[in-house]
């Protein structure tokens, strides 16, 4: 009887615990991927505008994640003095295709900061 009761309760509990473990890894993935994507976005913001192009990085910054940067002209081109680029940064687990985190922004050319 005891064994039966334990089995009925233990099996769902074991499934729950396994989900917990998976959730911990998911949480770690989300945190790391988000911070890596933010790092790259800040990096892009400080790059020369013309140098912001498509790029892929395997094991980005030494972590077990791949980063893909996509830069396309929304308006204008490299031939026009005024242009706008859409920057998309996606982070996925190393070797996997589906992105964990994707950040998007626009950057206009010839913008400077200061007084």
């Amino acid at each position, binding site marked *: 009887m005891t064994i039966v009761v334990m089995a009925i309760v233990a099996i769902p509990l074991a499934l729950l615990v396994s989900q917990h473990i998976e*959730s911990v890894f998911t949480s770690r993935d989300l945190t790391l991927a988000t911070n890596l994507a933010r790092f790259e976005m800040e990096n892009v913001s400080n790059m020369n505008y013309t140098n912001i192009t498509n790029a892929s990085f395997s094991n980005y910054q030494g972590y077990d994640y791949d980063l893909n940067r996509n830069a396309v002209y929304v308006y204008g081109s490299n031939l026009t003095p005024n242009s706008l680029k859409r920057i998309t940064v996606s982070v996925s687990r190393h070797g996997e295709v589906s992105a964990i985190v994707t950040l998007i*922004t626009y950057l206009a050319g010839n913008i400077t900061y200061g007084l």
Partner: protein
Amino acid sequence: MALSRRGIVLIAAVMLVVFASIAVLGVTTFIVQRLSQNQTNILRAKCLYLAQAGYNYAIYYYRANGTFPSGQVSIDANNYFVLNVTSTGTQAEALLVDPSASYLANSNKDVRGVTIRNTSGTAIAIDRIIVTWSLATGRSLRQIRIQTTTYNFNLSSPADADLSPDFSLSPGTTYSIQRFRFNRSMLQRIIWAQFVMADGSMTENIRIYPSSPAQGGSGGNIFTIKSTGKTTGSNIYRSVQATFNTTTGKITEYHEIPEQITP
């Protein structure tokens, strides 16, 4: 005795299960909250970069079209930003005076054809107009009429004509100064006007007759761009404010703000 002990293992097992269940429930709650917090952090990061996209778009749009966009702009099906742009320069910077079509009328006693325009996104007001003219002897300023509002004076050059009440200009609107009226003919005189605004700022001294190119304002050269980034299906937002100088092409100030800009 043996009979009474037979059920104790079962009771102990049930108690163990109950305790384990409570512990697992607690840990489950903790992990769900942590995952939820992570999702929120991702959305907040997304929204910040969408807000950044907003002011970059506004500056690009201004350079391409000469005006600022406003309202909601979608980047894709799930991501968008909302813009609000206002002038934060002085009122004099926002006032564009155009005397290029000025002429004399009414036996040369009236200067007509001068227009003024509020180039900013907010209302501005003229407090005084200081009118000066050459060969001033025997001439006095008697009247200034802007649209349908008439102000009467009897002032010698330099005439500090106080407009009472102040003349208010709505955003983006052009007004006609119907006339600067003098007591006698102003033929062969040169006439200047300096506009003193309600905030105390003033334009340069502008030659209103004989005609000269539009001058005085600089198109409201300092603008505040507020941008809110959002994703569809979420209440989370981030907003930034950037101060953009159209003359220098520089962002002179940039920081996050708590308010949400709505379309």
